[in-house]
């Protein structure tokens, strides 16, 4: 029972992490119909940005975190402006090839600078953060993940539900010509979704870096997991991305805990294939509203 609860907590916090980063992926897709194959590289860039600032420049952790967040937000903006915007209106395959190209380029640059080794962050999470209930021990990193994950989800939920900018973003995803007719800056919405995506990726990348160490290959392959997550959740559903993230996180930890650690990485993709066979639009894809 304790083991079960422990896996549950680990799985949930990992799941929230996937959910948060999948949010970025879904947002780009919803607003501009672009599938971002550089998702994992964005995770890695964020993680390395934080590594440079915290371990190399030895900035205070909070400052390093804040700068990483701002820096990746700006990076997302620049990537959209420089690479994606010239391709607006081009065929889907060209845009996909572009994001694949971006992924290769980013990965190459990071390998050049940081090599393929595992780097470590300085230990900064206070031990007091870890929790104990009887025999269950939750390491501080999982507690932190849990808290940060939920915090981000709430912040984004509020942003999309109540803020004007969030509502404009949803309007573009919903009906682009109508949004344009009301003066919504559609291109700015695209840029903003890339910026937010890069930011949430950086956040997830840092936490994954704390858990597993910072490594280019590792982080970019974790980025691929966004596909099972969003396909489970439905490509166009933010709520679905969250549920999808949590399900994949739980599946992974439970497979790792009860079946075998080597199966752990494979399970999400097996689930992906099964889901695609039964429900091609994902489990939680938007229900099309049709009027009679």
């Amino acid at each position: 029972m304790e083991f079960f609860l422990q896996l549950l907590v680990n799985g949930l916090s990992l799941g929230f992490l996937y959910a948060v980063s999948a949010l970025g992926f879904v947002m780009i897709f919803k607003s501009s119909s672009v599938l971002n194959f550089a998702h994992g590289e964005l995770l890695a860039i964020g993680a390395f940005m934080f590594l440079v600032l915290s371990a190399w420049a030895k900035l205070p952790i909070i400052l390093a975190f804040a700068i990483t967040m701002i820096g990746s937000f700006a990076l997302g903006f620049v990537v959209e402006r420089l690479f994606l915007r010239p391709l607006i209106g081009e065929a889907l395959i060209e845009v996909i090839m572009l994001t694949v190209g971006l992924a290769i380029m980013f990965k190459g640059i990071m390998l050049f600078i940081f090599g393929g080794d595992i780097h470590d962050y300085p230990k900064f999470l206070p031990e007091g953060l870890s929790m104990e209930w009887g025999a269950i021990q939750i390491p501080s990193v999982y507690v932190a993940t849990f808290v940060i994950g939920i915090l981000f989800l709430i912040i984004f939920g509020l942003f999309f539900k109540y803020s004007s900018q969030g509502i404009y973003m949803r309007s573009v995803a919903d009906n682009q010509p109508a949004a344009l007719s009301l003066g919504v800056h559609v291109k700015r919405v695209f840029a903003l979704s890339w910026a937010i995506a890069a930011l949430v990726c950086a956040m997830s990348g840092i936490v994954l870096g704390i858990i597993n160490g910072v490594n280019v290959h590792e982080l970019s392959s974790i980025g691929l997991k966004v596909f099972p997550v969003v396909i489970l959740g439905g490509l166009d559903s933010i709520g679905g991305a969250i549920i999808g993230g949590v399900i994949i996180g739980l599946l992974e930890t439970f497979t790792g805990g009860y079946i075998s650690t080597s199966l752990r990485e494979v399970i999400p993709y097996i689930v992906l294939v099964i889901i695609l066979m039964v429900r091609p639009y994902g489990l939680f894809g938007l229900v099309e509203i049709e009027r009679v």
Partner: protein
Amino acid sequence: MENNIRLLLNNISVVYSDVIQVLKGVSLTVKKGQIVSLLGSNGAGKTTTLKAVSGLLKPENGKVTEGSIEYDGSPVQNSSPEEITRKGIIQVLEGRQEFKYLTVEENLRVGTATRWGKPYKKDLEMVYHYFPALLARKGNLAGYCSGGELQMLVMGRGLMAQPKLLLLDEPSLGLAPLLVKEIFQIIRRVNNELGTTLMLVEQNANMALQIAHYGYVMENGKIVMESDAEDLRENPDVKEFYLGTAATGTLKSYKDVKSYKRRKRWL
């Protein structure tokens, strides 16, 4: 004289995809505070005319290739919709383009995009004042609203932008006659009370000419007739082709081949 003109189309031509010419030298004038109606059958180029004004031709690969569009005295042809909406021109698209997955109130809030960050509570109250039906539905997803509610929603959403020139594309399309009447009354009130200048594209000439001050008739990408709304209402051709009543009050025979053909083309 010059400065009571809100919009001036000066002999404009519009071409889609560099080859498909749709407007061939359209000129028209909209005075401040007026409702100007643009009538014409399906495919005449009415929507294209509105899109030329609002800048929405651009995303459809259309372009004003000749002539000029002046808004409050300065040229706006081929500007982007982002710029034009911020100058106060809002087009309410044909076919009630609501945001399905946004609530009614969220839909209205998108209407504030041209003045992001400014207060909008008063404007919401104003819209609910003109369209009380929306207030009752404000928390519902727009995708589940009826056609009449949606027409009110998209018009209210346009008003949220505090437009100086509101372009309405076929607001009566597919609505029951009673509802059409209600909506046209509201359009007239908006024009009277808020002073909003309106351009009203319609196939329902009967209703449009009841509230418009001035009217243009378009055929095949050209303006073929223009006059005060009253005169148009009395014009025998308009009566025959649009209002459905021949001047004599008797139905013309289908043997009158020429008239039959023309009628078909018009409707």
